[in-house]
């Protein structure tokens, strides 16, 4: 027999499956900050363009040692917590109702579509008139801002609950309330939680807007004050705090997801 040339088959599979790489995310931050630091020190980034990262860090340390950090953080966190709690809980309830009842669905979906694109910041003066210049208007703004994305995520999630599971519940004679509590809500939980990620990020965005009027303390008020004085170090210090807040909330939701949704494939 003649010699046959043996070639290995060319590999053409793989890819299209991103895997988490632990330290890459941190590295991106480190590299960006290092470039900014080098640039501002060497002078090819002017002090007017970007503050020196080390100065921002110093400002943050100052905030911490003077105790001002918690004076600002305290009211902001309570506004965030109360506003988001109101918005999210009403949002989930309305979303579930839209997911379950034809009339509520037909009535509410166009209404939600109408209020979703309103920039909630524009309504701040209205909220001040309705709920007062104090905490009320701030809660209302954050609640309203988190409400709409929560509703949309929730009724989408309820729509996606496996109908065969609901038929199963009916075929075993489960009550309507049992089906909602034991089948619809747990089944909608993945969608509701991913909606929560968006709603809470929006809550942080609106925090700054909420503190535009009638707030002496608060991260938002601090940023706005620094902004109007063009004090870039303080502005950036405030922004970094908001970013950290976002990262912490996102990590918390990730933790809840791992605890609650361990049953997923």
């Amino acid at each position: 027999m003649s010699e046959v040339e043996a070639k290995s088959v060319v590999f053409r599979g793989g890819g299209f499956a991103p895997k988490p790489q632990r330290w890459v995310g941190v590295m991106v931050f480190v590299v960006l900050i290092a470039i900014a630091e080098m640039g501002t020190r060497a002078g090819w980034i002017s002090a007017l363009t970007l503050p020196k990262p080390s100065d921002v860090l110093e400002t943050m340390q100052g905030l911490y040692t003077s105790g001002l950090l918690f004076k600002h953080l305290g009211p902001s966190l309570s506004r965030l917590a109360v506003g988001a709690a109101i918005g999210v809980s009403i949002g989930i309830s309305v979303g579930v109702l839209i997911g379950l009842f034809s009339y509520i669905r037909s009535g509410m979906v166009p209404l939600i579509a109408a209020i979703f694109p309103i920039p909630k910041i524009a309504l701040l003066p209205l909220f001040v008139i309705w709920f007062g210049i104090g905490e009320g208007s701030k809660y209302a703004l954050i609640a309203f801002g988190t409400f709409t994305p929560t509703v949309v995520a929730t009724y989408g999630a309820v729509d996606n609950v496996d109908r065969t599971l609901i038929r199963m519940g009916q075929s075993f004679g489960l009550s309507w309330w049992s089906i909602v509590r034991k089948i619809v809500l747990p089944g909608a939980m993945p969608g509701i939680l991913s909606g929560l990620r968006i709603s809470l990020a929006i809550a942080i965005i609106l925090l700054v807007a909420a503190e535009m009027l009638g707030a002496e303390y608060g991260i938002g008020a601090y940023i706005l004050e620094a902004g109007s004085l063009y004090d870039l170090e303080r502005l950036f210090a405030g922004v970094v705090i908001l970013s950290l807040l976002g990262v912490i909330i996102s990590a918390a939701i990730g933790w809840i997801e791992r605890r609650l949704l361990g049953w997923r494939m």
Partner: protein
Amino acid sequence: MDIRLDGISHSYDDFEVMRDISLDIPKGQILCIVGPSGCGKSTLLRFIGGLERPTSGRVLQMGEPPEGCLNPLTYVFQDFALLPWRTVSGNISLVLEDHGIKGAAAQEIIDDVLARTKLTDFAKALPKQLSGGMKQRVAIARALAVKPAVMLMDEPLSALDAQTRELLMDDLVDLWTRQPFTAVYVTHNLAEAVRLGHKVVVLSRRPGRIREVVNIDTPLAERETGDADLETAQKHLWLLMRDEARAADAELINV
């Protein structure tokens, strides 16, 4: 408790699915319904269990369900329909909770049905950890837990591979031999029908009508692969169905 189907016809708009089906489902037997795809056999099963309403005709429950029966008409679904967020025992306790059975009383029933379906070691597993065959065993255990008068099985083995299907058929035969139950078993697999059915109802293609009811007298426990009588019965069923199946296959789907 027997079930009687009395002149059931069904159509979606002016699309006739089923015509004049009358049938008695006797107690303590497994009745198989076979037919080409689209003949409405699964729909018929949904009528029997009250999940859908026929356009005309009635499903009658003859007599009272036996004592202690929690859910007289109980389904076993093709795709198992297990709650993925509940463990095996949690899935069974789901159907007991609404009847106020909790704690020790529930545990006793759960232990019993898990033992009968050989699942005792898997009580704490989540559905995602189980193979298809195991999942269907859990669904059967769940159905047994409510002590049904009639089990309504909608292609229960169709989502499983051939080996698992054999194993589960053996299990069903064992289960029936130890404690005869009434079942309506819908399938498109003729081997399953002659293995498990005391009676096999052959439906025609759409609009579904009863073409023939074939009785198979060999006791379930004595049915083995290669049995001449069963082979003959299966061949007979296939002859009845072949042309229907071919015609049904060639039809355009316009649902």
